[in-house]
């Protein structure tokens, strides 16, 4: 009977619940009110971004590096000893960046980052160390010794902008919306892109089905070394393979060498009691028996014999046995440390690898997926900097050691030697090393034989979005050229972690990814406390586990960072308890735990570089975040971290995500046999920052969103609040940028509405004039007159005034005047100081900096010193402006660079109105060039007299299927009529029905189609025209930068053919395919003209007797002028003949009459 009673109680309860529903007010809300948790939980996202920001991953990583990792590096390399003087030592006690020991909270005032940009300096802070060393008999402690300067990541906790409010930022000439996360090295902004790699210290099992090979591999990576260990099958037998062992070692032998001598125990460790596995494994025992390896001693000898030894000179030679021990202790699976020759852990690790291989041999589906995001780790700026710094620091120490050894070697010294005097000599090495690596992007570390190029990139400042997009970019280590689809494909496990749309097209497609909006990348956490915690939660320590029961059914191994640390019989309970502790904040929120039932294992990960994201915890079918919590958030009482602390929200990495059931919406939560564990905060966070700009992306064909992601970065707009203070090589500004009528929540979150890149154009989707085919656009001239699409191009020109060793220097000189006293044409823009005047118009061929170089600059200082210096003569080397359109001088900056040389930057500005051929694009991957500019009166107009800014051809729609663009138009039109900004947020946004309703209410057709009148005839158009605002971006590709034509011009020196390329005023090549056409057509005279006469015609004297080329009507070979014939050949042909002659081949011409 009890069940029935329970049922009736539930019924009664639900009745009551119903009664409550019928009340006009239910828990303070009316029935008509939406349940606000579902609606308002998105507020967690801005809260998250407020705490984390979009580039938090970079900042966290760098902060971790300077605060924690540096100290670890110092600890690992703390002692410098001398080979000469055993008494001497120097010990590093502490290291700090940016502040002295006495004033831990007072950061040193650094040069503001913007000054570094302008003056081509490096934004860096001093690195201080505290050292303890011996001077004679005394031990001296010295604090705050500067050993170099560290480039500082902007807005990291060492940056002066850390925690600065908008006013402070303004005072430093910084944009408060600038995300930071980059370095400034020699005045250029450099980003260290996030690098994606296969995870370290984890077993990855792969199979080659064709060859029947199964291999388990693990890349061990520690501070000291990196090595890769394989367990592979060969002829169904299992071997261990390692780079430092010349031959594959049978698995049984390696296990015996590691101290598991009993065959039974080996079988138990690898196969457990599963007969299938045992059958597969027994062959390996035969192999070991055949090789007569039975004891550990024999096994160690066997291994030792096959170790490739690279011994440093002077090191004692080891016996085979010792080699074997050494190999097992240090080289194989190097990330496990062995103490007191206790090899058990290592043996277990190898056994686990072997077990994974056996499992895969038995069941091929047990392989791991390399492309699975859970098997990837992201390497950030901090890790890369730490590798670099450790390398440099080691070099610094060895240089220092060499230096003191040299001094200490001297038998008698006059005074006591102070080691500190020689430490300063090398301090430049660290500074320069760091600067060079960041500015060139070449990470070359001898320790790991790492040689990586292209690690850093110049931060693209084309627009705010392009800079932001760069900060969230992830580059993969795969080669671009390889034709594999796996690593490029969209992985289901990317959901919510990596943007599904934002990837470039072409060769890097799928290899370069972007982070999604709400992600966090972990940093390393301590492993030891977690191990201890496991034991406290009922995990049996692995060293105490009986081998026989290790792989018993229901006995789960517990792995911490891939290493087996113990077992438990109650994995469910264990995981639950662990998670409880994490939710209460007893354990770091970024430690993940998940169960793998196939491997009977619980995995705990504490390592850095995992991507994770926050999710709302669901318990008993209810979201733990309720309206009350959100109210607190809205009121500002709670921040995002409070949700973490109170266990309402937690971070899951990809592996743990796969262990959970995540509901997209609140209504999807269920309590079935597999209950929902988490609730998504906002579904649109599957997209990244750049893809988040697209309105209604869920209505578009997916490649269109990808195209827009690429184009959004090329859009001209506002760059930053300090954009007019910046002096960059090339900058584009839009004169009147507008925020889009149809926004998305992402747009507001990333402040695109404050730094937009585009304008709301009224678009008529119709055919007009025929100049709109192939995606060309028709622009309204009146709109352009009024400022539509107007942009500015600002270009930097740098002039350096050098000083020469002979005390001469470059100078600037004023203008030269003609006979009327007016400045000569090239000097018209100059001021009295020899620099362009701000505001002056400067045309092609005019000078913006009248620089003079001393004629004797190359002479040595010694000779010139005696001569009088005032008779210096100078040569004119002015900087000419080159360009089809004039520019205006925007700014002139004079400063002094690092090496005391005058640095002058002249900023030239052009304001451009749109013209034929300029490129525009909507936010839906629909790009087009301007095909014609039409007078306003010729354009169609509607009842209200509105004529379109842009006419777009309707053929752009059917094949592209960008329905989102149509909905954007309708929403935008409704917004304009209603005076509101509408939303086109992904998986949400303003509903089309509501928008149509607004249109009808305002007297327009529900469909967005209006009746238009032709501007030319004045009659009504026979079709209704889809008409309304769409946000259009002007892209950086403008005709003015590309136009090129040439009649005559420069030629290459060697071949005398016209030069190539626009920048060299080159010719337009009649290529081989064009040549084929001319040949096929039979236009031989045209061919002759194009290929020779207009190119490199060369008159040459040919001796018809010897067939060689003569000179000046004289054949030098025949010593006569008798048979000389003048003819014209291409200079390239002449060159070929001469080159052949030079290699002892005589090409002889035999000339005959043609006609």
């Amino acid at each position, binding site marked *: 009977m009890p069940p029935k009673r329970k049922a009736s109680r539930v019924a009664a309860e639900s009745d009551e619940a119903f009664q409550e529903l019928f009340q006009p007010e239910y828990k303070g809300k009316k029935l008509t009110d939406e349940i606000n948790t579902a609606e308002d939980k998105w507020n967690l996202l801005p809260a998250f971004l407020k705490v984390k920001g979009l580039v938090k991953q970079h900042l966290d990583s760098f902060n971790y590096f300077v605060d924690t990792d540096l100290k670890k590096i110092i600890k690992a390399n703390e002692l410098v000893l001398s080979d000469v003087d055993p008494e001497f030592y120097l010990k590093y006690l502490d290291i700090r960046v940016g502040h002295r020991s006495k004033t831990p909270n007072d950061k040193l005032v650094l040069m503001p980052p913007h000054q570094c940009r302008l003056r081509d300096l490096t934004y860096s802070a001093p690195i201080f160390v505290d050292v303890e060393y011996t001077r004679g008999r005394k031990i001296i402690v010295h604090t705050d010794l500067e050993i170099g300067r560290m480039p500082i990541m902007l807005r990291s906790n060492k940056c002066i902008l850390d925690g600065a409010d908008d006013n402070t930022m303004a005072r430093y000439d910084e944009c408060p919306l600038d995300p930071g996360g980059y370095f400034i090295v020699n005045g250029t902004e450099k980003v260290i892109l996030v690098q994606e790699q296969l995870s370290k210290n984890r077993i990855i099992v792969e199979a080659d089905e064709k060859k029947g090979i199964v291999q388990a591999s693990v890349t061990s990576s520690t501070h000291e070394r990196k090595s890769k260990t394989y367990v592979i099958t060969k002829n169904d037998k299992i071997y261990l393979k390692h780079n430092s062992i010349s031959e594959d070692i049978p698995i049984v032998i390696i296990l015996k060498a590691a101290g598991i001598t009993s065959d039974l125990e080996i079988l138990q460790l690898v196969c457990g009691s599963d007969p299938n596995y045992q059958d597969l494994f027994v062959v390996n025992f035969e192999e070991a028996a055949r090789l007569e390896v039975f004891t550990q001693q024999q096994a160690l000898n066997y291994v030792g014999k096959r170790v490739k030894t690279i011994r440093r000179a002077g090191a004692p030679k080891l016996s085979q046995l010792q080699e074997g021990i050494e190999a097992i202790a240090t080289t194989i699976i190097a990330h496990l440390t062995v103490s007191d020759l206790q090899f058990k852990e290592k043996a277990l690790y190898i056994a686990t690898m072997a077990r994974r291989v056996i499992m895969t041999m038995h069941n091929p589906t047990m392989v791991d997926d390399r492309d699975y995001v859970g098997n990837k780790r992201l390497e950030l700026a901090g890790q890369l900097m730490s590798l670099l710094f450790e390398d440099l620091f080691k070099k610094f120490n060895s240089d220092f050691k060499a230096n003191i050894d040299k001094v200490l070697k001297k038998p008698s010294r006059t005074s006591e030697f102070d080691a500190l005097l020689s430490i300063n000599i090398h301090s430049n090495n660290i500074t320069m090393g760091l600067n060079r690596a960041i500015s060139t992007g070449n990470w070359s570390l001898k320790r790991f034989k790492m040689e990586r190029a292209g690690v850093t990139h110049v931060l693209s400042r084309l627009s705010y979005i392009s800079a932001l997009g760069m900060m969230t970019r992830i580059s993969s280590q795969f080669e671009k050229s390889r034709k594999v689809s796996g690593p490029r494909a969209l992985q289901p496990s990317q959901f919510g972690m990596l943007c599904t749309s934002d990837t470039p097209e072409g060769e890097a497609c799928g290899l370069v990814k972007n982070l999604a909006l709400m992600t966090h990348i972990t940093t390393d956490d301590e492993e030891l406390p977690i191990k201890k915690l496991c034991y406290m939660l009922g995990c049996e320590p692995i060293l105490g586990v009986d081998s026989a029961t290790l792989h018993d059914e229901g006995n789960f191994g517990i792995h911490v960072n891939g290493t087996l640390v113990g077992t438990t019989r109650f994995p469910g309970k264990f995981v639950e308890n662990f998670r409880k502790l994490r939710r209460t904040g007893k354990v770091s929120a970024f430690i993940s735990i998940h169960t793998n039932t196939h491997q009977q294992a619980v995995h705990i990960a504490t390592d850095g570089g995992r991507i994770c994201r926050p999710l709302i915890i669901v318990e008993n079918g209810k979201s733990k975040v309720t309206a009350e919590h959100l109210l607190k958030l809205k009121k500002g009482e709670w921040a995002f971290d409070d949700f973490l602390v109170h266990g309402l929200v937690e971070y899951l990495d990809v592996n743990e995500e796969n262990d959970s059931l995540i509901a997209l919406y609140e209504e999807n939560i269920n309590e079935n046999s597999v209950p929902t564990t988490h609730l998504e905060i906002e579904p649109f966070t599957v997209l990244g920052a750049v893809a988040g700009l697209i309105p209604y992306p869920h209505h578009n064909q997916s490649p269109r969103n990808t195209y827009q992601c690429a184009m959004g970065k090329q859009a001209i707009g506002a760059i930053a609040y300090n954009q007019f203070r910046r002096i960059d090589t090339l900058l584009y500004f839009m*004169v009147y940028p507008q925020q889009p009528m149809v926004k998305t929540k992402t747009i507001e979150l990333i402040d695109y509405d404050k730094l937009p890149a585009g304008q709301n154009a009224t678009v008529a989707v119709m055919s007009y004039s025929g100049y709109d085919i192939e995606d060309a656009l028709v622009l309204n*001239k*009146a709109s352009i007159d009024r400022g539509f699409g107007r942009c500015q191009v600002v270009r930097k020109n740098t002039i350096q005034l050098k000083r020469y060793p002979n005390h001469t220097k470059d100078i600037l000189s004023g203008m030269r005047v003609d006979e009327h006293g007016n400045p000569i044409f090239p000097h018209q823009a100059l001021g009295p100081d020899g620099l362009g005047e701000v505001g002056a118009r400067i045309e092609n061929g005019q000078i913006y900096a009248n620089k003079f170089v001393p004629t004797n600059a190359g002479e040595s200082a010694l000779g010139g010193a005696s001569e009088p210096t005032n008779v210096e003569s100078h040569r004119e080397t002015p900087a000419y402006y080159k360009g089809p359109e004039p520019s205006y001088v925007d700014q002139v900056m004079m400063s002094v660079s690092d090496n005391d040389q005058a640095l002058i930057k002249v900023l030239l500005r052009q*304001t451009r109105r749109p013209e034929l051929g300029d490129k525009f694009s909507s936010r839906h991957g629909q790009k087009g060039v301007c095909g014609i500019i039409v007078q306003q*009166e010729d354009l169609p107009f509607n*009842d209200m*007299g509105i004529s379109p800014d842009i006419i777009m051809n309707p053929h752009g729609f059917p094949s592209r299927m960008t329905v989102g663009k149509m909905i954007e138009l309708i929403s935008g039109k409704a917004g304009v009529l209603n005076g509101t900004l509408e939303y086109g947020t992904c998986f949400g946004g303003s509903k089309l029905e509501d928008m149509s309703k607004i249109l009808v209410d305002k*007297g*327009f057709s529900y469909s967005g189609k209006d009746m238009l009148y032709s501007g030319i005839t*004045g009659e009504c158009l026979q079709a209704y025209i889809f008409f309304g605002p769409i946000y259009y971006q002007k892209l950086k590709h403008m005709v003015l930068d590309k136009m090129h034509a040439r009649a005559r011009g420069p030629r290459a020196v060697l071949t005398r053919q016209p030069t190539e390329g626009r920048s060299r005023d080159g010719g337009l090549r009649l290529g081989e395919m064009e040549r084929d056409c001319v040949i096929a057509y039979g236009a031989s005279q045209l061919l002759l003209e194009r290929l020779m006469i207009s190119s490199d015609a060369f008159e040459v004297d040919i001796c018809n007797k010897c067939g060689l080329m003569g000179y000046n009507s004289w054949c030098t070979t025949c010593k006569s002028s008798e048979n000389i014939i003048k003819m014209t050949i291409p200079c390239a042909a002449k060159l070929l003949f001469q080159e052949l002659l030079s290699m002892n081949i005589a090409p002889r011409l035999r000339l005959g009459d043609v006609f």
Partner: protein
Amino acid sequence: MSDNIVGIEYNRVTNTSSTDFPGHQASGDFSWDIEKFKQNFDIDIKYLTERTANFDLVHIDTSIANAFRRIMIAEVPSVAAEAVYMFMNTSVIQDEVLAHRIGLIPLKVDPDLLSWVDKTQDENNRYTEDNTIVLSLDVVCTKNPNAPKNSTNAKELYRNSHVYASDLKFEPHGSQLEKFKNNPVVPADPNILLAKLRPGQEISLRAHCILGIGSDHAKFSPVATASYRLMPVIDIREPITGALAVNFQKCFPPGVIGINDQGEAYVQDARKDTVSREVLRHEEFDGKVKLGRKRDHFIFNVESTGAMSPEEIFFKSVRVLKNKVEYLRNCPIGQ
């Protein structure tokens, strides 16, 4: 007269072109007759304000009505700044952008008082007192010493922090002193923001304003827009009554459809209709109503930018059209 109605169907517009020219149709002559035109043609002025005019041209050919529209937009001359000479500009706004903004300001000048600028002349002799009006803008931003404490409002903290169109000052030259004595040149809208300044920043410039036409540059267009729409026609074919009538009424903007005492819908004022075609979406009105527009009834709407009154603009468009016709008539080809 149904052939005079442009048909508004659910998904297309029919009967858009007029066919009333001589010999086209068996019924009717349609040959041009000035007397007949005089008799038929009708102008009905709905309202006139300083900036807007709304009037109907009835029984006129589309081509003529459209010609007026086009001329008003593009060919009626007006005055705008063309050359801006910068003496000082330390504001954040760039010279070109500031000049562009000044160019777009509508000026209250009678264009008839100026003559055309001869573009063939070189720049030094091009502008004379007969064809050019000089406006000057000289503003320096300073701190306001008696600004209220804790104020964050730039207008309170600084003087001349905002530069408006009204800061442009007319500089009469020569005969202009007399000519513009009673109506000095001022921007039509004084509150157009030109630039924002902060203490220490300064703008000093002269703008030369000349006569031009809208097809040259939109700044010379005397209208914000000038356009027309056709008179809507709502033809209720079958009586619509009761609840249906209420629904029918809702398909139109308020005031278009009335419901009489019998609960029957009738057309109250078709002119107010925006032709949203909402009624065509609803099946229940299928066949009961026919929408259309009168092809020769043009409801003109002229919005002046403020330099001239809208009616003046229209008259000028007529003058321009007359001149064009005169030119054509004198063309040798025409003879």
